[in-house]
C-alpha cells in the first residue's frame, strides 16, 4: 500500500479518474488487508508440531483440539455459518490416532471418509485402539498414518452420537472433508483468490525494491528501472495516455464490475485490479447478457469522449460515461515512438504491469517471421494463461521498425487482425444490434481478432514499414524529458551509488546524450567502475555508449546545411571538432552515401549563402565531384574500405555553406528521373535494334546508332524530293525515289505511326499540337534530342507520310512472301544500295554494302541452282539454300573486302550486280505467284472509294439477260 500512497501524491484527482475508468478501485485504503488468511494460519501450527509417536499424541490431542476450537471461531465465521446449514451430513471422527497434522486429515483417502459416513458418525475411542484387529472386539476400522503405520480402532455407535452433538462446533474448525463439497469448492476459490491477492499486492510493493541494496554487478540501468508508474521519467501526459488506453481494455479483458460472487470477493475486486481468471467466465457471461445492448448504444459516443478525456474536462462527467463504456478501445494498437533511451519500453512494461497484465515482449532479437509472429500473437491474444501466473497477457513488440522485413511481417499480422475486427464490427452495426448479440459474432471472428492490448515500440515513426500501422494505431510520440528532470534522477542514482558528480557535469552529460537516460547511466556506471570523474569539458572524448541509431536522411541534410545557433555553439566549448565528429558519425551511420551526396548536390544551389565570387560554390561542387569519382571507383572496384572517405565531403560542404536559417530541402529526384528516362530510351532503342534484320544490326552498336547514324538517317528518310501528290502522278524518277525510300524504311524497320503530338513533347517535327500526327514508329527523333541540337532535316508533308505508311506496309507483305524462298539478302539489297550511295562518308556503311554485294552474288547463284534442280521447289529445299549461302557469305565477306579497296569502282560494280539481282528477283516472284495461285484460285480486288459515291439507276432488265 506504500506505493498507492505514493501514487496519490502527484495529482490525486487524475489518478482517481484513471482508477474510475477501470471501476476497480485499487487505491482504496483497504481495511481488511491485515485480515489473517485462514489457511495460512491453520497451516502454521501443524508445521511447528513435529510428528510424534501415537502415545504422546494421545496426550496432546485434546490440547490441540482446544486450540483449534478457539481459533476457528473468528476467521471462519462465515464458513461455519454455511456449514451449519448442512448439518445432517456432517459427522466427525476423532483425529486421535496419529492424525495430528491437518494435512493428513484433510487429504485422507475418501475411502475412510465414506466408511465413516456410512456408519453414521461413529466415534473411535482412544482405548479401543490397537495394532491388531483381533484385539478389538466388535466392529473396527483400519486407520493408516502417513508413515505407513496402521492401527485398528473400535467403533462405538452409541457414544458416537452423543459426541457428535458435543463436537458440533469443532466440526468445521478442524477442516475435515466431511464438509459438503460445495463448501470445499468455495474454500478453494477463496484460496486461489487470496493467492492472487498476495501476488498482486506483491507486485505493487515492487517499488520498494530499488531502495534495498542490490548486487553490485547489476547494470544501473536495470537496477534503477522505474518499477512503478510514478517513477517514470517520461512525459507525464504521455504516461497517462498510455495508462488510459490500457485501462480501456479492462472491461473486455477482465470482465466487469458486475459480479455474482460473494461480497468478500467483490470487495477484494474493488481493491485490486487483478482478478482471478477462473471467475472471469462467469462474470463476462453474466455481463454480456445484461449489459450488452447498453454498450452498443453508447459505444460511439463513448469512444469519442475517450479521446477527449485525456485532456480531461470534468471527470465526474467522464466517470459516468466510463461506467457505461465497456468495449475495447477504438484503436487496438498503441504505437510508442521516440528516440532511444527515453523509456518507451519501460513505460510499456510498467503501465501494463500496473494494469494487471502479464507482459509478453517480442524483441528485435526474437524470431519475427510472419508465421512465428502470428502464432505468438494468437497465443497471447486468445489464450487465458494456464500458468500459475494467471494474469491476462499484454503483448509488447519492441523495436518493431528494427529489421525491415521482419517488422513488416509483424505489422502485417497485426493489421490483418485489426482489419478483421473492423469488418466484424461494421457487419455488426448493420445487423440488428441487440439481437445478433456481440458474443456470437465475436465468436465467429474470434480466430484473428485482437482481444488483448498490443503495444508497439519504434524509434522512427516514419519508417516505411510502419506506414500502414500508423493509420490504425494510437500513436504517442515521446518527447525528451527536461534536462533538469533527468539530471535530478541521475543525481539521485549517483548519490545512491556513492558516486560524486556535480550537477553541471550531469547536465552536460544529459545534453550530450540528448537526454538518453540509458546512455547516461551506462556512462556513469562505466566511469564509476573506472574510478574516474565525469569530465565536464570533454564528455565527447569519454566513452558514451549510445544505442545504434541512424537518423532520417532528411535530418542529415538538414544537419549538413544548417548551422547550430550561436548560443548553442558557445555552450559546447570546443565546437569545431565536436561538430565534425558528430556530422561524421551521423553520415556514416546512415550509410547511403550516394543518396546523401545526391541530396546535397541538388539542394546546395538552392541555398542562399553569401558567395560573391562563387568561390564557395566552386569548392563545394569540386568536392562533390571528387566524392562522385571516388564513389564510382569504389563501386567499380569494390574497394569498400575507401567508403570512409565519403562523409568528409558532407563535412566540407557543411563548413562552407551551412547557414543558421532553416534550409528548404527537397528530395533529390533528377537523378532518378534521368535514370528512368535513360532506361526507357535504351529499351526503345534495343527493341528497334532487334527488329532490324541482323545483317544490318550486327554492325551497329547502341552508341554508334545514337551518335553517328540517326541524324543522317533522318535526312535519308525524309528526302525533299518527294512531292505530296498521288502515286499515279509521279514521274518515273520520283517513283524510283519513293521505292528506295520505302525499302530503306522497311529494312530499318521504321514506319510512321499515329501519335498524339503531346506524347512526343520535344519532338522536333511536330509543332502542331492539336491532333494526331504521324511520326516515326520507333521514335528515332527522340534519340538525338541532344541539348542545343536541332536536326534540320526536311519534314515530309503529312500526305507523303500517309502514302509511305501504306507503301511500307505493302512492301513488308511483299517482302515476307519473297523472303521465303530467297532469304533476306535479295529483298534488302536496294535499300542498302541507297544507303551506301547517299551516305558514302560512313565507313560502316561501306562495310555493309560490301557484305551485301557478296551476298548478291551468292543469292543469285543459289536461285539459279535451285531453279535448275527442281522446278517445283518445295519450301524445305528452298530454305536450305540460303542457309548454305549465308554460311558462305561469311567467308566471302572478308575476302570480298580485301579484293575491292577502292570504293568508287566498287559502287559501279555493285550497281550492275544490282540490276541482275532485280531480274532474278522478278523471276522468282513469278514462280512464287504461281505457287500462290495454286492455293488461291480467286482473288479479291478492292475498289477504292465509297459504294454510295456513284449511284445509277439500273433496270431489272439488265440483270435478266
Amino acid at each position, binding site marked *: 500500500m506504500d506505493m498507492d500512497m505514493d501514487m496519490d501524491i502527484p495529482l490525486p484527482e487524475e489518478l482517481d479518474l484513471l482508477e474510475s475508468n477501470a471501476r476497480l478501485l485499487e487505491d482504496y485504503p483497504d481495511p481488511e488487508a491485515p485480515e489473517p488468511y485462514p489457511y495460512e494460519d491453520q497451516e502454521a501450527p501443524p508445521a511447528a508440531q513435529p510428528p510424534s509417536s501415537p502415545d504422546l499424541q494421545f496426550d496432546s490431542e485434546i490440547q490441540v483440539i482446544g486450540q483449534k476450537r478457539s481459533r476457528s471461531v473468528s476467521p471462519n465465521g462465515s464458513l461455519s455459518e454455511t456449514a451449519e446449514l448442512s448439518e445432517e451430513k456432517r459427522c466427525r471422527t476423532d483425529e486421535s490416532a496419529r492424525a495430528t497434522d491437518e494435512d493428513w486429515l484433510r487429504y485422507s483417502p475418501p475411502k475412510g471418509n465414506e466408511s465413516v459416513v456410512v456408519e453414521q458418525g461413529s466415534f473411535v475411542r482412544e482405548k479401543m485402539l490397537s495394532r491388531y484387529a483381533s484385539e478389538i472386539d466388535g466392529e473396527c476400522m483400519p486407520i493408516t498414518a502417513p508413515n505407513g503405520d496402521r492401527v485398528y480402532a473400535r467403533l462405538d455407535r452409541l457414544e458416537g452420537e452423543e459426541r457428535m452433538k458435543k463436537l458440533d462446533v469443532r466440526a468445521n474448525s478442524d477442516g475435515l472433508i466431511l464438509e459438503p463439497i460445495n463448501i470445499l469448492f468455495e474454500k478453494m476459490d477463496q484460496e486461489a483468490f487470496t493467492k492472487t491477492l498476495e501476488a498482486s499486492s506483491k507486485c505493487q510493493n515492487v517499488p520498494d525494491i530499488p531502495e534495498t541494496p542490490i548486487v553490485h554487478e547489476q547494470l544501473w540501468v536495470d537496477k534503477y528501472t522505474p518499477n512503478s508508474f510514478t517513477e517514470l521519467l517520461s512525459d507525464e501526459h504521455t504516461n497517462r495516455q498510455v495508462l488510459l488506453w490500457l485501462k480501456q481494455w479492462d472491461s473486455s479483458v477482465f470482465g466487469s464490475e458486475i459480479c455474482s460472487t460473494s461480497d468478500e470477493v467483490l470487495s477484494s475486486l474493488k481493491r485490486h485490479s487483478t482478478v482471478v481468471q477462473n471467475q472471469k467466465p462467469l462474470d463476462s457471461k453474466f455481463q454480456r447478457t445484461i449489459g450488452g445492448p447498453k454498450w452498443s448504444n453508447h459505444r460511439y459516443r463513448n469512444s469519442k469522449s475517450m479521446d477527449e478525456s485525456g485532456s480531461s474536462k470534468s471527470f465526474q462527467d467522464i466517470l459516468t460515461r466510463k461506467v457505461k463504456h465497456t468495449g475495447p478501445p477504438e484503436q487496438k494498437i498503441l504505437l510508442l515512438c521516440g528516440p532511444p533511451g527515453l523509456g518507451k519500453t519501460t513505460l510499456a512494461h510498467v503501465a501494463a504491469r500496473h494494469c494487471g497484465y502479464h507482459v509478453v515482449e517480442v524483441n528485435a532479437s526474437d524470431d519475427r517471421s510472419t508465421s512465428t509472429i502470428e502464432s505468438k500473437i494468437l497465443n497471447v491474444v486468445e489464450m487465458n494463461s494456464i500458468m500459475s501466473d494467471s494474469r491476462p497477457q499484454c503483448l509488447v513488440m519492441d523495436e518493431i521498425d528494427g529489421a525491415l522485413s521482419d517488422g513488416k511481417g509483424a505489422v502485417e499480422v497485426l493489421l490483418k487482425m485489426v482489419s478483421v475486427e473492423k469488418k466484424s464490427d461494421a457487419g455488426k452495426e448493420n445487423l440488428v444490434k441487440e439481437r445478433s448479440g456481440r458474443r456470437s459474432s465475436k465468436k465467429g471472428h474470434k480466430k484473428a481478432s485482437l482481444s488483448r492490448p498490443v503495444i508497439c515500440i519504434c524509434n522512427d515513426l516514419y519508417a516505411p514499414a510502419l506506414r500502414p500501422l500508423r493509420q490504425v494505431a494510437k500513436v504517442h510520440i515521446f518527447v525528451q524529458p527536461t534536462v533538469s528532470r533527468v539530471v535530478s534522477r541521475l543525481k539521485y542514482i549517483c548519490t545512491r551509488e556513492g558516486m560524486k558528480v556535480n550537477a553541471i557535469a550531469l547536465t552536460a552529460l544529459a545534453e550530450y546524450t540528448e537526454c538518453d537516460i540509458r546512455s547516461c547511466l551506462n556512462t556513469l556506471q562505466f566511469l564509476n567502475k573506472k574510478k574516474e570523474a565525469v569530465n565536464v569539458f570533454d564528455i565527447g572524448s569519454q566513452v558514451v555508449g549510445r544505442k545504434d541509431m541512424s537518423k532520417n536522411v532528411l535530418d542529415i541534410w538538414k544537419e549538413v546545411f544548417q548551422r547550430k545557433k550561436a548560443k548553442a555553439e558557445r555552450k559546447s566549448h570546443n565546437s569545431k571538432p565536436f561538430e565534425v565528429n558528430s556530422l561524421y558519425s551521423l553520415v556514416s551511420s546512415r550509410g547511403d552515401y550516394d543518396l546523401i551526396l545526391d541530396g546535397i548536390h541538388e539542394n546546395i544551389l538552392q541555398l542562399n549563402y553569401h558567395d560573391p565570387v562563387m568561390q564557395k560554390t566552386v569548392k563545394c561542387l569540386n568536392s562533390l565531384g571528387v566524392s562522385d569519382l571516388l564513389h564510382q571507383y569504389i563501386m567499380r572496384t569494390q574497394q569498400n574500405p575507401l567508403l570512409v572517405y565519403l562523409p568528409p565531403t558532407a563535412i566540407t560542404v557543411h563548413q562552407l555553406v551551412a547557414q543558421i536559417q532553416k534550409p528548404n530541402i527537397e528530395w533529390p529526384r533528377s537523378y532518378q528521373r534521368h535514370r528512368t528516362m535513360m532506361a526507357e530510351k535504351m529499351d526503345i532503342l534495343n527493341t528497334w535494334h532487334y527488329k532490324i*534484320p*541482323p*545483317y544490318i544490326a550486327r554492325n551497329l552498336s547502341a552508341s554508334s546508332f545514337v551518335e553517328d547514324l540517326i541524324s543522317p538517317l533522318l535526312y535519308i528518310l525524309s528526302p525533299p524530293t518527294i512531292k505530296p501528290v498521288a502515286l499515279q502522278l509521279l514521274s518515273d524518277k520520283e517513283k524510283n525515289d519513293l521505292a528506295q525510300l520505302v525499302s530503306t524504311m522497311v529494312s530499318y524497320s521504321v514506319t510512321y505511326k499515329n501519335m498524339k503530338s503531346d506524347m512526343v513533347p520535344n519532338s522536333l517535327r511536330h509543332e502542331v499540337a492539336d491532333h494526331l500526327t504521324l511520326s516515326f514508329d520507333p521514335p528515332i527523333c527522340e534519340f538525338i534530342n541532344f541539348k542545343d541540337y536541332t536536326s534540320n532535316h526536311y519534314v515530309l508533308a503529312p500526305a507523303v507520310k500517309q502514302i509511305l505508311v501504306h507503301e511500307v506496309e505493302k512492301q513488308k*507483305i511483299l517482302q*515476307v*512472301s519473297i*523472303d*521465303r524462298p530467297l*532469304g*533476306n539478302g535479295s529483298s534488302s539489297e536496294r535499300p542498302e544500295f541507297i544507303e551506301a550511295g547517299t551516305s558514302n562518308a560512313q565507313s560502316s556503311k561501306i562495310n555493309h554494302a560490301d557484305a551485301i554485294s557478296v551476298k548478291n552474288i551468292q543469292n543469285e547463284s543459289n536461285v539459279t541452282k535451285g531453279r535448275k534442280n527442281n522446278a517445283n521447289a518445295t*519450301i524445305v529445299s528452298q*530454305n536450305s539454300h*540460303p*542457309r548454305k549461302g*549465308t554460311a558462305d557469305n561469311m567467308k566471302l565477306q572478308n575476302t570480298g573486302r580485301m579484293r575491292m579497296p577502292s570504293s568508287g569502282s566498287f559502287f559501279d560494280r555493285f550497281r550492275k550486280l544490282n540490276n541482275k539481282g532485280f531480274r532474278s528477283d522478278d523471276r522468282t516472284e513469278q514462280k512464287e505467284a*504461281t505457287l*500462290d*495461285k495454286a492455293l*488461291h*484460285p*480467286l*482473288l*479479291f*480486288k*478492292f*475498289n477504292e472509294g*465509297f*459504294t454510295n459515291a456513284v449511284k445509277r439507276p439500273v433496270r431489272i432488265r439488265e440483270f*435478266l439477260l
Partner: protein
Amino acid sequence: MQIRMKCNCGEGNCSEWAIVDVQGVVEAQPSFQDRLQNLEIGVLCRPSSQEVYTLTIGYHELTGSKVPLKKPILVLKKTKQSGVDSDRENNCNVELHVVGVIRQRILFKTRPKALISKAKVEAKETQKSTI
C-alpha cells in the same frame, strides 16, 4: 402487265436467300480463267453471335455486316416450254418459278485485311535464326 409465277414451296415458306455485297471485284487467277466451274470463292463465316461476318477470299479477309434490303428481291427461275403451243402466244410457254426470297444482304464495304499465312512467317523466322 401481269406475270404469273409458280411457287412450289408452301405459303410463306419460300427459302431465304441473301446477297453478298462486296465493294470490289472477285477475279480469277489467269491460270484458272478457263475453268471457273466449282471454284471455291471463299469462306463466309460468322465468328461471333453478333451480326458480323467475315469473308475470306484468297489472301484477303473482308469484314461486313448484315443489312436488311429496303425492298425484298425475288429469285426466279425462268423455264421455256418449247414446241407444243408455239403458234399461240409466245408468252405462254415461259414459266417463272420462285426459287427464293432475298430480304437481307451482307455488306462488305471496308478495306480488306491482308492475311499472311502463318507458315510463311515461320519460314522467315527460321531463316533469321540461321543467319
